Each structure stands twice: as structure tokens, then as C-alpha cells.
């Protein structure tokens, strides 16, 4: 187990650049789905610009919940309650002045299960810019090409932009969803187990895409696959039952965990 992770880390670039810019900062975040059930407990974390940060931890520990706090997708669920503060680029995103649509435009999201719209490939990618007010066809064409290229899909689909997105393979669909999120030119991309339902080859492809994207975007990725976290991320947060147990550079966390719980988890003693 440990050897696998070291192999994975081998590919990882060591964090040398110390001039880190904080993009997301949470301060004493508590989250409740129902009044008596605390799902996130006193979360304090800072996420740096143009880095890949991974959340790992056993299933049900609140990784997705925390991720959804960042673009306020949890707001849709009736009866939730959140305390504490989340700042993105220095602004409190839960302040009443924040327009949800603007916030979400700035933060792209890729879901666990690929969810392309039942439309053409072109329409899928152009959807975000369109709802955010871009109407010119040539602008949209440009954005579609740019996003698909960044999402590593352009070469495969450039000849069939007008065919249904549903005809793509599972891995292609997920990369389309990445491209769709990129079309809004976001600063941050949230990915919730983006490869969990894909075969190894497609997973590989997604991971390559992520590696290319990290030069331009801040990426937060939830995964329960530790090798994946080791391969793609620079920072890793280990969560358990709503708490962040340990947060560190990925290589440090995996090779030299400070907490007993972390060590137990990465050596496969539970989870």
C-alpha cells in the first residue's frame, strides 16, 4: 500500500514555490443538514491558487458537502444551516450582496457522475457562456474550441460538434463536463470524484487533463482513491466525520503523516 503511494508520488512535482496566494479560506465552518446533525465541524482550511488540492477520507465524512459549500450548491437543499465564514479571493461568499449566479460562474464544478445535457456537444459547452449573456455565435465558437481543447477533447469531437453529447463514451462525457465548466472561464474548478465511475484508461486520461489544467486553474478535487490524490494533487486534506484531521503537502501527508488517524487511513487500516 505504502509502496503504491510512493510510486504515485514519484510522478508528483515537489512543492518548491513558496509564494502561495490563498484563494479559498474557510473560518470555523460548521454545517448541518438537519438541526441535530452536524456534518462539518469547525473547518479551517486555506486553498492556494493554481494548485491542486485533494480531499480524501472515508465515505460520508463530508468531503462533498465541504466542496459544495464553496459554490453554494448546498443552498438548494431545504433545511440546511451553515455557520462560519468562507472567503474566496477575499470576499465572503455568504454575504447577502453576493449574486449566486456570479459566484458559480467563477467556480466551475464537475460532478461524480458525468451529467452532460441531452443536447449537442456544442450546446453543452456553450451553455454556460450563453446563460451568462454571451450571444455572438463567433464568440461562442471560439469559447467552445478553447474549452474543448483545454478539456483534452477537441481532437476527438471537432468533427461532430453537432451530434448529441449522449453519444460520447463515459470518459469523453466526463471530459466534456470539464470543458463545459471551463467555458465560463472560471478561476476555480471543483471536482467531486470525477473519475470514480470510469474505467482505468479513462481515469488516466482525466488525470492527465487535470495535470494540464493546474497551471491555469485552482483545482479542488474530492477523491476516495488515495493513489489518485497522490498522483494529481499538491496538497491533500484528510477528513473524517466532518473534521479535517490533517492538511499538508501531498508528499508530506502520505510519506510522513503527523496524525495517527491519517496513518491508519493511508496504510489501509480502515476506510
Amino acid at each position, binding site marked *: 500500500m505504502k509502496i503504491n503511494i510512493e510510486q504515485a508520488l514519484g510522478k508528483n512535482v515537489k512543492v518548491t514555490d513558496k509564494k502561495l496566494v490563498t484563494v479559498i479560506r474557510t473560518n470555523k465552518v460548521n454545517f448541518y443538514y438537519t438541526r441535530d446533525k452536524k456534518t462539518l465541524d469547525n473547518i479551517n482550511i486555506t486553498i492556494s491558487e493554481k494548485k491542486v488540492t485533494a480531499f480524501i477520507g472515508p465515505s460520508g465524512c463530508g468531503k462533498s458537502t465541504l466542496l459544495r459549500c464553496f*459554490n453554494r*450548491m448546498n443552498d*438548494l437543499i*431545504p433545511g440546511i444551516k451553515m455557520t462560519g465564514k468562507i472567503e474566496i479571493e477575499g470576499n465572503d461568499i455568504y454575504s*447577502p*450582496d453576493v449574486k449566486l*449566479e*456570479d459566484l*458559480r*460562474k467563477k467556480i*466551475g*464544478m464537475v*460532478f461524480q*457522475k458525468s*451529467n*452532460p*445535457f*441531452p*443536447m449537442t456537444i456544442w450546446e453543452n459547452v456553450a*451553455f*454556460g457562456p450563453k*446563460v*451568462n449573456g454571451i450571444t455572438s455565435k463567433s464568440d461562442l465558437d471560439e469559447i467552445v474550441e478553447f474549452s474543448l481543447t483545454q478539456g483534452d477533447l477537441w481532437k476527438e469531437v471537432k468533427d461532430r460538434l453537432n451530434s*448529441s453529447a*449522449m453519444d460520447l463514451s463515459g470518459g469523453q462525457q466526463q471530459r466534456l*463536463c470539464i470543458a*463545459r*465548466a471551463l467555458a*465560463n472561464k472560471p478561476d476555480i474548478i471543483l471536482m467531486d470524484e470525477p473519475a470514480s465511475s470510469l474505467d482505468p484508461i479513462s481515469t488516466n486520461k482525466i488525470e492527465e487533463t487535470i495535470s494540464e489544467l493546474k497551471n491555469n486553474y485552482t483545482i479542488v478535487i474530492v477523491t476516495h482513491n488515495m493513489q489518485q490524490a497522490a498522483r494529481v494533487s499538491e496538497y491533500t486534506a484528510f477528513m473524517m466525520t466532518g473534521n479535517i484531521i490533517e492538511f499538508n503537502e501531498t508528499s508530506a501527508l502520505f510519506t510522513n503523516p503527523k496524525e495517527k488517524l491519517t496513518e491508519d487511513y493511508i496504510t489501509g487500516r480502515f476506510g
Partner: protein
Amino acid sequence: MSDKNKFRKKIERNNKIAASVISISGYGVILSIVALFAFLLYETIPLFYSASVTKTVSVPSNKNSKIIFGDIDSYKELFYSINEKGIVSYYNVKEKINSGNDTIPLLDNEKIILSEKSTTSIGRIAIVTDMGRIINIKIGMRSDFVKDKRNIVPTFEIENNFNIYGSNKDSSFGISNLSYDISSDGNKFWSWLDNKGNLYLKIFNSDSEQFLDYNLSKQTSTFGLTALIIDTENELLIVGNNSGELFSFDISDPEDVTLKGNWKSSNNKITKLAFLIGGNTLIVGDSKGEVESWFQTRGEDNQLHFSPINKFKKHNSAVAQIIASPRNRSFLTIGENSSVHLNFSTTSTTELEFKMNDHSIVYGTFTPKSDGIILVDNKNNLGVFNLDDKHPDVTLNTLFNKVQYEGYNEPEFVWQSTGGSDSFESKFSLIPLIFGTLKGTFFAMLFSIPIALLGAIFVSQFSSKKLAKIVKPTIEIMAALPSVVIGFLAGLFFSSLFEQNLMLIFSLSLFGPLLMILGISFFGFIPERIRRNYPSWVDIAFVFVLMCLVYIIVSTTVYPLEHLFFNGNLKQWLYSSLSVTYDQRNSMVVGFALGFAVIPIIFTITEDALSNVPKSLSSASLALGASKWQTVKKVVLPAAAGGIFAAVMLGLGRAIGETMIVLMATGNTPILDLSPFNGFRALSANIAVEIPEAPVDGTLYRILFFTSLLLLTFTFIINTIATFIGDKLRKKYARF
């Protein structure tokens, strides 16, 4: 091991049983639908059968004396003929034997030259002899039952006779034409032309018990009169001459007979005239073989004039006989060259052409029930034909095209299946009924589609779960409401409510939504940060308060407005200014009531379709920065399009087939009128309305089957479209 095998076998057996039961019931459903279609077709098809004649018997006759007249009883069992020597011979058609004679007493060497039977009074015959006598006889047919066996016994009676030559008896004198009729009040009419072209009319006035004699020749100014007929209502005497002119005399007052008018009807000699049953339609035949129907219509001067209506198939020779059916608007025309045409006036068709033989026909008549034809030729051949023409008044043309019915000034679409008298002309246009169905459906959909769709969108996308839990079952209960209850409420309660509050209803349906939208958009201006802290019921309470407010605003301003613009009464204003009549039970009321029945269907299916759109799609959209409404519009609605389309189509199918509501909430007047303030009659309601009037296997009965077939086809097509297009849309938008 064997236990396991047993278990396997059991499972296999159960599988087989289940499979066969399921497939049998599946095929059964399909089969029963096919059978239903087939049955409806089977009952409908005879409507379109063409007429046919078959010769049943040739009655033997004495070839030496000319036969003048022939007829049969209504069961077509006892035939009789009268020959020129006054012998009435009876012939039993069933047993093919002569069954006796009667004799009309004639003078020495006196011969019968003409006979004419009254069209209105069965068995009354006027006989003209070459000595100038008119003898009126009455031959009755009594059915006696001997040991449950029917036996037709003739009764023979000489009523009276008189001499029409008067004093100026002259050997070159003769009679060429006779019309004889007895009116319902007992007046008798004889009118004839002599061979010099003089026109005479003799009336027996039953009140004064006196004969009145008229010589009408002088009033016709021209000579050469060639044909005449008294109408079956005994109000008109029509005479034609050799240059194609017709003259009409008013004979309704026996004491005062006057020329009413004359007109040109043909360029040729008029050879024969006849009135059809009811005494409205005049059939004119001329020497070139033309046959044309005429009846009185109101002209621009608001007076009744005879107008040409339909032309029928031409004969190759002069028209020698025109014989009207005693039961319907069929008539026979017989050419001098012995061709026989069977025509039907309403449909303006010549249904049948046939010949008995190559000899010219001297006499023809319909059997009393119009189910047979009797023909006599100049060689004394007697033929009795069966006529099979059960539904002469229905063709695709009369069902779907305009027809000029008696008394109408122009061709129209009319549905009027039954009337007060036997001589009523049935009007079977389905267009007003189809129109009614479409009109009702249109108003119902106009009302229900927006409400049902918006409601479904609200409940599935915007409302809180708690509210949805209340609204959905409530609307499902609406679907369970028996349509008779809705119809009853609409017909008795809402219709009068609408009528009394017309202006209010209008203003509410016009300004209500506008004010609501205004109010709600004002609500939208309240900043998010304040709104977010509201409990969810605040929205609903706000809308409710808004509704009350809108109602109060509209209802207080509506009466002053009505006074200002519509002289205080919109309904009266509609009539006086736009001459729009307002029926209490009108299309708006039906649209409302029928909409009530349709809303639950559209709502439920649409709501399901919308809720079935995966949350992941709307999440994706929201995460891309789309607003809630953008998400609904661009992602959820397209993804649910197939289901929504199917919902609307199913609602449409329900609206088309719905009977009770349209029956009770409209006046069921089959009129073609787009006005929402008039009623209509729908196909479905028509079936319910007409069933009591439709004897089994009659024309109306079969037309009702035809309309059921139409309805079934309509709904079948709509459901098929719903499925096909729904599927297509689902394939396109809903592959998740």
C-alpha cells in the same frame, strides 16, 4: 439433487404460464380494439351502399286490353291492376295466383284513358274515360289474420263520378293530363288539361259540400299547356307549357283561385311535373330529357320564389313520367325511351339507372313503403321490383359538404336529424358537430394548458416539498371528480354566474394575470438577503394576499368601467353594438368546465415528466451560473418535452371524447359560429342526444355509429401522435 431439479421445473413451468397469460391478455387488448373498430365499421358501411333493384315477379296480364294502373299493398303481397275496360284484377304475388276481380262500371264502348292516384290519400284513384267521365274509386287493403297468418283482403268502392265534358260534347275532345288530390280536411281537387290546351280545376269543398269549377286557361295568357301538378299540401297548382314556362296558382282557398306567378324553367317543352313528399320540391322534366328540382326560396324582395336547385341525370329522350316516393325524397324519372332513373333530391344524386325492357313505360309507381317499384309498359308487361335503398339521404357529400335543403336560400352545413313530420327532410351534415367538438376542445385547452403547465412547473420546480405534497393529491382528486358533477355545476351554476358577472369575469381573466405578474415582480425586487430569511409559506401567503387584492381592485373598478364603456351592461352592449348574442350556456362555460376535467390529466403527467428530469442536470446548469428560471427553461423543460407533449395530447384526447360536460354545459345547438358566447354541439354529446331518436338500423343509427368511429379515430390519431412524437422528443432530449 432431485429436489433442485423439481424446483427448476417449477420455476420453468411458472415462467411459461406467466408468459402465456401475459401474451394472451396483451393480444386480447389489441384484438378487442381491432374488433371495436371492425364493429363500428360494420355498422357504418351500409350507409354508403348504393341502391339496387331486383325484379321479383312478372305479373301475368291480359295482353288484349291496355293496363292503365297498377299498385300493391304495403306488405307487397297483393298486386292489382286496372285495365282500360275497367277490370280490376288482383294477383297474389306470394302464391302466384289470380285472386279475383272487381269491375268499374263503364258504359258501352267506354274506355279508360287515364288514371291518377292521390299522393296524400292511399288507395284513392281518379279514372278518366274517353267519354269524359271522371270516376273516383277507392281500393283498400285490409290485412286479416287467419290463424296467425296474414291475409290481404281488398276492398273496392266507387266513390262518385261526374262528367267533365259538360254540354259542349265533341268527338275530338280529350284529356291529356290529370292531377287528383284529397286534402287532409276532405277537400278534393281535380285538375286537367284538355287536348286543346285548356286548363280546368274542379274542387269539392268539404265545408259547403259543393263542387267549384274553374277554367284557368285565360289566366295563363299563352296556350300550349302541357303538364300540371297539384302539390301534396294542396296549396299550389303548377302548370307548364310547351315553351318551358311554369305557372303557379294559389288554390289554398277553394273559393278564390288566383294566378300567383310564372317563370321560365326550361327552354323546352315541359313534359312532366311532380312534387316530392312535403310538397316543397317541384321536379320538372322536359322534352329534352332534362330533370331539375325547384323549390321556393326568399329572394331579395323577401318574397318566396321558385328557384332552380339541382339538376339530375338527363334522359336521352323526353321525360315521360316523374314519380315521387311516398316515404322520402326519392323520385323516379322515366324517359320515353323506357330508361328509368332513381334520384334522390337532397343528395342531388341519380342513384340508379335501369330498364325493365325496351318498351316504353306507360305507368310506374312506388310501393306504399317505398321499398319497391311497379312498372307497366305499353305491351302490358307488369313488373314488380324490390328496391333496396335504405339510406338514400346519406352520401359523403351530404355528410361533409354544404347542401341546399328545402327552404334554405343557399347551401349550408346543417345538422337536424329529425323533425315533426314524416315529410321532414333530414339534414345530416357532420361539419357543425365536428366544429363543435373542435370549438369546445379549443376553449378547454385555452383554459387548461396554461394553468396545468404552469402549475406543474411550479409544483415540481419551485414550490416547497410540503406544498407539493398538498397540491398533487388535491389535483389528483380533481381528476376523480365525475364529469357529470362538473357538467351539472357548469350548466346550472357557473353558466348563470358567468352571465351575471360577465364584465367581472372578463376583467379578471384579462387584468388578473397582469396585476398578478406586476405584484410578483414587485416581490422580486425585495432583496435576496431579506427574502432568504422568510419561511417558505410567506411566498404562498403573499400570492394569496395578492390574489385577494387583485380581486378587490378589479371588482370595485369593474362596474364604473362597465357604465363608462358599455352603457352599464356588457351583455346588452355586445348585442346592440356588435350584434353578438350571448347564450347562457356557451363555449366559455364549456371551456371552463371541460378545462376542469382536462387540467388534472395535463398537470399530473407534466409534473411527472418534470420531476423525472434528473437532479444532476439541473445541478449542472445551476453550477454553471444559470438562474433557477434559466435552468427550468433551458434544461428541465426541453428534457421533459416528450412527457409534456404527451400530457397535452392526452388532455386533448380527453377533451374531444368528453361527453357529459359538453352535453350539460352547452345548449347543444349544432351551429357553426366562432363566437365564444354561443354554444355548440359536440360529436360526443350528439350521440347522447340523438340515441333516443335513432331506431335500430335506421339512417340516424348508422350515422351515430359513423360519428363514434370518427371520435375513436380522432382520439386514436391523437394518442398515436402523442406516443410517436413524445417518443421522438424523449429520444432527442431525455436520454439520461
